[in-house]
């Protein structure tokens, strides 16, 4: 077995250093090494989006990124979305809008929605649907998710 590799990265704003096998994915490193289990594994081949994280601001499925690629990068996971004890408006709107049922896709969807609202403060329904098309949800039929992202966009605009 190849030797473990040391990786220095920034996760949710904090410096993190970990050892991983070269074959391990970022998702494995987050969950099994760093202990951040909020990112979920639904398929391990990039098709469900439950492991979505921000990778230097871009949305990626962390199961398709090697852990060693995190060297020197900035990673944001679902654990980094809330602001201290205060939920992010997207999280608050998901709760009020009943945008989750089983909740296992929710972390990935909230991370993806945050990336969308960070670059477009007033996205159309079509744009929300396109943006979230890599995040499968089997419980909700997406209706309440799309509406909750719209509600969060409005709330964030009001707060400005």
């Amino acid at each position: 077995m190849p030797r473990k590799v040391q990786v220095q990265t920034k996760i949710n704003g904090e410096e993190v250093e970990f050892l991983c096998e070269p074959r391990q994915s970022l998702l494995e490193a987050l969950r099994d090494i760093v202990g951040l289990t909020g990112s979920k594994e639904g398929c391990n081949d990039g098709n469900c989006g439950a492991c979505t994280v921000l990778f230097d601001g871009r949305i990626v499925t962390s199961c398709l990124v090697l852990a060693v690629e995190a060297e020197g990068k900035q990673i944001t996971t679902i654990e980094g979305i809330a602001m201290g004890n205060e939920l992010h408006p997207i999280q608050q709107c998901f709760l009020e809008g009943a945008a989750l049922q089983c909740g296992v896709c929710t972390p990935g969807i909230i991370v993806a929605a945050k990336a969308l609202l960070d670059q477009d403060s007033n996205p159309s329904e079509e744009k929300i649907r396109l943006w979230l098309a890599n995040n499968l949800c089997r419980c909700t039929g997406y209706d309440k998710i799309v509406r909750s992202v719209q509600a969060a966009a409005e709330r964030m605009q009001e707060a400005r």
Partner: protein
Amino acid sequence: MSTQNYEPNMVLSTTEFDVIGTRPVRHDGADKVTGRALYGADIELSGLIHGAILRSPHAHARIKSVDTSEAEAHPAVRAVVTSADLADAGDQMVDLGEGAMPLKFLRGNVLASGKALYRGHAIAAVAATSLHDAQEALKLIKVEYEVLPATLTAPDAMRDGAPILHEDLKTTELGKPTDKVSNVSNHFQHVKGDIEAGFAEADLVIEREFNTATVHQGYIEPHNTTVLWNNDGRVQIWCSSQGSFTIRDTTAAILEMPVSQVKVTPMEIGGGFGGKIPVYLEPVAAVLSKKSGHPVKIVMSRADEFEATGPTPGSRIKVKMGVRNDGKMVAAQAWMAYEAGAYPGAMVVPGSMCVFAAYDIENILIDGFDVVVNKPSTAAYRAPGATNAAFTTETIVDEMAEKLGIDPLELRLKNAATKGTRRADGPKYPRIGCVEVLEAMKNHPHYNAPLEGPNRGRGVAIGFWFNVGLPSSCSMSVNADGTVMLIEGSPDIGGTRTSLAMQAAEVLGIAVGDVRPTVADTDSVGFTAVTGGSRVTFATGIAVIKAARDVRDQMSQRVARIWGVKEEDVEFEKGVFTSNNGTKNSITFKELAKQLSSSGGPIVGRAAINPPGVGGSFSGNIADVEVDPETGKVTILRFTAFQDAGKAVHPSYVEGQMQGGSVQGIGWALNEEYFMNPEGKMMNSSLLDYRMPTSLDLPMIDTVIIEVPNPGHPYGVRGVGEANIIPPPAALANAVYHAVGVRMDRLPMNPVAVMEAIWEKEDVPA
């Protein structure tokens, strides 16, 4: 479009309450939007090692030998198991909550012995210090197979000379055992009236044959389990399951130990839809733990999910229906063959109960066939069996309406089942909401909105699911601060902690936030059947109401003692105890809670029930589509879902069930299928190729909740989880017909199927 009175989500309510009918934030909400909620795969235990399962590459093969010696020699491997490590099952039956099953089939599905019956069938398992090592070690196991011919569909498996899966499976024919060895495990009939006389009375008879593909529930969280076989001989399990007690009982049966030796702790569950009722991993992980001395975690891959869990049956269904010119349906006949997969138990029985369930028809004959094939052993999927069935009936009813020149909703209303209608399988309906659902559809702005443009069409369809009761237990303790701890045993998949807490709050006159629900492990709560059959808000709800009333009555006794009045002179309303006997006394629930320990001690309410009074649920869809005549692609322009929920405890969660069920039905209708090669290999076992609906494929799913209270529940709850998946395939098939003039008789109606139908109509060679 007429949108004047239109709201995307409407509730047609009949009774109002204080808490029930409101939309509070769920108790587990903060955990689930921050990533803190712990699902099965998130658990970490001291000394944990990882398991992986070797699966058959063949759909049908005799296992001649399994050599695990090289795997055992791998330095990271701590244990290896094969079916030789599980005891012989004999002829025992195991109760699964929604029906019993022979133990040998359950055990055989967990680890194959003798033969592999489908591609993906578990052959052996390895536990190693890391998952990657376990997966490497699987490659060191040598299995010698004698590959056998496979049979993959019900019609093929039923023919004479078809490859036989189980040499000891003999057909049960109309309730009687026979000596005939075949792949048909059961042929049954439902008879009502005189089918010949019925068809003789008909002016119009329509007969069609339908085929529907195997589909998967598609929950996003794969099956997972972590098992510790402790040094005291107790087995402890942490898993994502719809039924902790079902996992406990089936695991105990397979391991041949008393149920009290197994403890199941339910973790958060990432979707189930019926697919997370059977046991797959737990007995294997238990034996790996026993052999290694470590807790063992196994998580399925997505390909394993498709190839080795329980999808819902593919089917061939022939339906013939007769109607008079005045629109009265007089005869209905169905021949239904469902693919059970590798072991008996296709959902053809519930399918047969639902196939004509929406209509009051005098003469009915239904033949059902439960057929084993070389595909994964099927499981429940949201109203199991009913979606296949309604696809057939509801497209024929649409054709009837067209040929008779009657509005399709009027034709349904003219024949709608109502209180007192007897279903072909026996029961007479109590109060049901079929008529109310149809009326709501007819009156909805969507039905009356113009739909213009070429290749566009509107379709309607309805569906029925009977729902179930089954046992539930709970307890409830009162805290000194006036809050209440609710301990119950129903794994919460879609917000039932809250829908249960709301019912407790309603009884006790307190805020829903003052009830703290916990889904307890199997040591800590009384027996509770699976989260399935749309039962939790109804059945566990009744247990919660009963336990809350127990709390209320004990509080009443306590306050009577404190005030020195008779118990019957204490009244309770909206959270306040009063007594008008001489002095005017009054105390709130919260104030009294403070005094409990000083006035006699704590108060705990409890209930354990198996409720009668189950209320079935009707659903309906109006769907507008546009069909691309060049490619056959169907685009949904507008979709409205209707359902009789009984009283909607939390309307947002009811809408969520309706929207989610509708979209699963849409996926089933338009895209999803097990695409098998002739050797029985699934060619699309990834989420990319299986292609469930994404957010981009759909419009908003509008909802209308129709509340026809169920007299069997104190607040009128029926249960809403399942009926909503039933109508979409038929509604979309009817919409496709009205768009491009082709009657679809197979699922999925993917572009290939639609194009072939268009070419056939236009007489173009495909």
